[in-house]
């Protein structure tokens, strides 16, 4: 696969294979956008978690388009399958009665527009940066497949592999200790 920043090919027809791939990509991006809007704006936290799951499902599709089916599957397993469920359990155990607009109370009138302008400023500046920069393409040496990822994890990047496992072990023990403290 050649590294091309933006392929200058002619536009595909809508009802060809490439056209349908483009349509599916647009649907995936729409899923990401919809999920993010729901997750940030929902009044009830359970709906926000549902938005998170929708957004990360779409993001798994985006990873698939970035030529990494392995990470798409990991995204579905870890984020949609584990993290969203974990947050849902946290809401069940630690949210008092769900009032309307819980989580949005007590805030000053300016907080919403101010936060929106901060987010819009971030988005605008990052977009300008992404579109204006001349990216430098290096010649490709490796491949994308899962076999190469596994080989690299056990040879070149074995330290990362060990670090991940230690971090996860410490997180498990730490979560148990923290959640058990003061339980009586």
């Amino acid at each position: 696969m050649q590294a091309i920043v933006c392929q200058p090919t002619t536009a595909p027809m809508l009802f060809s294979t490439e056209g349908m791939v483009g349509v599916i990509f647009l649907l995936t991006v729409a899923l990401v956008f919809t999920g993010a809007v729901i997750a940030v704006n929902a009044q009830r936290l359970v709906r926000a978690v549902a938005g998170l799951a929708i957004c990360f499902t779409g993001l798994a599709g985006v990873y698939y388009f970035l030529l990494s089916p392995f990470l798409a599957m990991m995204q579905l397993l870890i984020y949609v399958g584990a993290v969203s469920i974990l947050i849902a359990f946290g809401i069940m155990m630690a949210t008092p009665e769900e009032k309307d607009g819980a989580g949005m109370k007590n805030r000053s009138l300016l907080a919403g527009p101010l936060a929106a302008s901060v987010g819009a400023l971030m988005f605008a500046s990052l977009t300008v940066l992404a579109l204006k920069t001349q990216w430098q393409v290096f010649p490709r040496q490796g491949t994308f497949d899962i076999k190469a990822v596994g080989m690299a994890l056990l040879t070149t990047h074995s330290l990362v592999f060990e670090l991940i496992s230690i971090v996860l072990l410490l997180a498990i023990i730490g979560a148990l200790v923290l959640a058990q403290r003061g339980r009586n």
Partner: protein
Amino acid sequence: MQLLNLYNCLSTYLVIGALLFSFGIYGMVVRRTVIGMLISSEFILAAASTNFMAFNRFLAPDPVVGQIFTLMIMAIAAAEAAIAISIMIAVYRNYKTIDTDDLVDLQG
């Protein structure tokens, strides 16, 4: 129809990452509960890994490195979510609330 060719462009994915990042920042500011802020922080992490994956796909010489970096980010995010939820449950036991406005013991 240039719209159907967007998935072959680096900047499309960078814009998606910027979008996720700005949603995360907006959520961090606007949410008043710890769980809401946790959800928003997941968006910021997802934006970072989207950028890594995009540069990995289009620019990097060895396309394995970005995937491993994204795997690392996913593991860190999972650990962070677990720790944050357990801290939140401990806080809820002591204060009976997870509203950030009520947790002001360190305010002096």
